[in-house]
């Protein structure tokens, strides 16, 4: 069953439930709850972004979500958590004059105007104090066709933007939001305001080595978990060395932090923007560049001071073996336009060394790499989040269904049994004179109370069409949820496990993406009995549950082997 199937089937079950509920006496009171669950199913997922202030967050966000955000971004404050969501009918209170919802720490909500936002600008003590009383700000955008319809976006103050006299304000606010999914294991059905995916952004600095990136990520990702966190190394265009080795560098960081970050993706938001704004000019640019002799091109690309050189001697030497004339400084200026030098260099290199614009574009998009981030968020985090959410919804639905089974059907039967007793009374009072009214009383009661056979039939339909499919679907997705929860537990208690046990469990529980169980086939029987005997010795029930799960996984593996 694919992930989309699961979501659709959940939707189907909710529909079936409301069909039945409106049919059965005494069930209609549960219809609003079903409606609530249905809304929950289609609520957007939550994406949060954290990182250092100068990591290029806003340009990354704009690249990821489109330009809409930038406009509201002017209202944005640095001391609060800002939530961006698609406006829906449910947002009563929204007006153009007061477009921002302020959610205070005590849960109180007010709608405010731009002057209130202005009062939150700045990093002085008074502002921070005010901001401290605020849980978060919500900005509403009409983004019917955009990404926001699918996701709610949470922007957090930068992790190093600590300001104010107590110095703690910022960190405190950020920490609060980044506690994220730790509550997941407690299985509280709390509101879905915790992030389904988190992006930790680190901006590349010219000349930095991989060790430095690693330190930067380590400092940024405290408390993160590979279950929902993704690293993004931005501004990879900043130096040429990094640009050519960006995938390698990202992989190094990802491997070193593999239980904190699911993966690390190198991106260039600037490149993304440059492509969007200037790609029409690329054929002309390529033609112009290709006229340069290779030696001259290489020298131009060394640095902007070389590219903009006005020294005629230099230019002559560069072009001495060529029948071309060096391009004039004006020409060079206009060809570069107003984009950043590092971006221009990367674009020029690709265009110069590629046969045609198309193949250059492939490489340029690979540098921008925004699509990879989008895809990972969606495939890895959101789909799973949706499934886990389906599981919660199904559990709630099951509770309602069982309550109906235990109370509504029992009541129907009990009432009917009462009626059987009344019937003899009705016939007792019956004479020729009262026959008509006795008949009509019987008809009336029969209409109100279904017969025992009808109740039996209704109940068996209820079981067949609702309860059994519900349980089947739940079983289907319970595994995914269970794995997710066990992984959260494992990570929160990682210091309890030996290095080897931890490694093995991460692999068994599928933390590193697609389960690489093939390598474990050889000694599956041995590993199973290891975990089997380990499970009973473990002191903590949570550890036990993990070990027992490992036993089950190996059992499946052994079954596969026998096939």
């Amino acid at each position, binding site marked *: 069953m694919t992930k989309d199937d699961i979501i659709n089937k959940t939707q189907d079950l909710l529909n079936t439930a409301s069909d039945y509920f409106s049919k059965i006496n005494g069930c209609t009171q549960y219809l609003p709850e079903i409606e609530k669950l249905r809304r929950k199913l289609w609520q957007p997922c939550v994406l949060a972004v954290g990182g250092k202030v100068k990591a290029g967050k806003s340009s990354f966000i704009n690249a990821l979500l489109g330009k809409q955000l930038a406009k509201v971004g002017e209202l944005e404050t640095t001391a609060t958590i800002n939530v961006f969501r698609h406006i829906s009918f449910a947002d009563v209170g929204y007006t153009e004059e007061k477009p921002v919802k302020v959610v205070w720490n005590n849960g109180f909500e007010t709608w405010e105007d731009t002057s209130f936002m202005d009062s939150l600008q700045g990093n002085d003590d008074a502002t921070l104090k005010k901001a401290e009383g605020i849980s978060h700000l919500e900005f509403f955008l009409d983004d019917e066709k955009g990404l926001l319809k699918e996701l709610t976006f949470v922007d957090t103050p930068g992790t190093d933007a600590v300001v104010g006299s107590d110095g703690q304000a910022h960190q405190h606010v950020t920490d609060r939001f980044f506690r994220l999914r730790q509550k997941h294991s407690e299985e509280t059905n709390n509101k879905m305001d915790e992030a389904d995916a988190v992006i930790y952004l680190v901006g590349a600095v010219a000349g930095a080595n991989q060790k430095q990136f690693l330190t930067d990520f380590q400092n940024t990702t405290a408390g993160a978990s590979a279950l929902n966190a993704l690293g993004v190394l931005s501004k990879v265009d900043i130096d040429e060395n990094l640009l050519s080795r960006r995938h390698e560098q990202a992989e190094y960081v990802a491997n070193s932090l593999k239980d904190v970050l699911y993966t690390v993706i190198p991106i260039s938001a600037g490149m993304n923007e440059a492509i969007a704004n200037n790609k029409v000019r690329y054929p002309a640019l390529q033609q112009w560049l290709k006229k340069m002799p290779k030696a001259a091109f290489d020298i131009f690309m060394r640095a902007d001071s070389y590219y903009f050189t006005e020294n005629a001697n230099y230019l002559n030497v560069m072009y001495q073996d060529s029948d071309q004339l060096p391009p004039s400084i004006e020409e060079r200026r206009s060809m570069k336009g107003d984009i950043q030098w590092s971006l221009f260099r990367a674009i020029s290199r690709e265009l110069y060394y590629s046969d045609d614009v198309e193949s250059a574009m492939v490489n340029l998009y690979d540098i921008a790499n925004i699509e990879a981030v989008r895809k990972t968020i969606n495939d890895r985090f959101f789909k799973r989040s949706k499934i886990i959410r389906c599981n919660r919804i199904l559990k709630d639905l099951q*509770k309602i269904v*069982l*309550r109906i089974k*235990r*109370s509504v059907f*029992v009541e129907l039967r*009990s009432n009917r*049994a*009462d009626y*059987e*007793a009344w019937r*003899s*009374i009705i016939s*007792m009072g019956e004479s020729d004179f009262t026959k008509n009214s006795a008949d009509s009383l019987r008809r009336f009661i029969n209409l109100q109370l279904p017969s025992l056979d009808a109740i039996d039939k209704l109940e068996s339909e209820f*079981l067949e069409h609702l*309860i*059994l499919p519900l*349980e*089947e679907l*739940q*079983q289907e997705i319970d595994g995914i949820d269970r794995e997710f929860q066990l992984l959260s537990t494992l990570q929160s208690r990682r210091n*309890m*496990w030996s290095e080897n046990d931890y490694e093995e469990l991460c692999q068994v529980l599928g933390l590193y993406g697609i389960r690489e169980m093939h390598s474990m086939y050889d000694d599956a029987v041995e590993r*199973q*009995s290891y975990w*089997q*005997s*380990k499970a*009973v*010795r*473990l*002191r*903590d*029930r949570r*550890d036990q*549950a993990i070990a*027992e799960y490992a*036993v*089950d996984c190996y*059992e499946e593996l*052994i*079954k596969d082997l*026998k096939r």
Partner: protein
Amino acid sequence: MSVIGIDFGTTFCSASWVNPKTGFPEAITFPYAVDTCKIPSIVFFPPQGEAVVGYAPYMQIENAATSSDREAIKRHVITSIKRKMRRGGSFQGHSHVEIISLILKHVIEEAQKACQFDSPIDKVVLTHPVVFDEWQKNMLIDAASLVGFSSDKVTLLEEPVSAALSYIKSNQLNDIKGVLVYDFGGGTFDVAYVQIDHHGKLLLPIDPQGDPVCGGNDIDILLYDQWDKMANQKYGRQLNSNPQEVDEPFLSRCRKQKELISVGGGQRQRFSEILPPINGHGFEHLVWDIREDEYNQIISPIIDRTMTKTQIVLDAIRGKKLPIDVVLLIGGSSRIPQVKQRLGELLGNVSLIKTPGLIDTAVAVGASYYAMGDTIGIGSSSQVCSCVYCDREICTTHRFCMYCGKENPLFK
């Protein structure tokens, strides 16, 4: 035709039958070294030969001479199948249904040895938690059919309903309308409310609450932790070289201590233990004089959890204005004195709390009562009778005659 009632438990099973001599349901006592009503729900699959169930592997593990012997057995033993069961699940090639059927079969065989059934057992009543899904119930039915009971010969019954039925019927209490069942076992905790409606049917109108990982075993661990702390203070050592794991023989000492404290009614006790040898440390001697308040404080985290769940059920009962006539304590861990005391505080009335004589077997015995009739009161619920004063036809469910207004002596 004979019926057996089986309480299929996570750690232990118990069973009941209708004694043909008395005509009343009784718990079955199995003739082992010590007379007991319980059979461990564990199955051992030796590398060669047939599966072994119950006390044989249980005693092997308890009495294993060395930890490596114990390890060797445990690698092939499945425990707590009730908690672990999954649809299509298996353990070392044996399906979960098969494992359950092996346990049921063993219980029935042992019951036949212990009791003089006057005819072959051809019906079984199995109890299960209220929260069991349909597929779990179906697995129980499938397991029973592997033992030879076709599905029309298997009846399933919710555990709290069974316990309430057993209490009410064995004490012949026909005017009870509501029972709170507090079931605190070795591994799990469940609390449920059973209502008896005016037809004498037993219903579960409130969502039951439970904690699948909260039981006596967790209290043993708390005591173990305390010993661990003391060993560290006095000798600078731990009980086990790997702090993530327990020393099983010592844990089993802790269980004994807990039982002694419960029996002793919570009085001050002195425990004198020899610590297991670990690298660099020999058999040190450690004494613990445990006071009641200290003990209560140590175990309160677990008791608290049961009280929180109970409070939720109580609130729901009060919200619906349903009556509570009795609070039944069942399951071995409900013997802990603190349980009764804390529950009394919660209810504001200790006198409601009853511990049925057979704390471990109330559920099993209820299963046999259920086989004899599933309602409280006598016979069918809506019999027609005549008013003894005016001779007109009325129902047995009416306390007063609706014609002459006089009391109906045939009211049930």
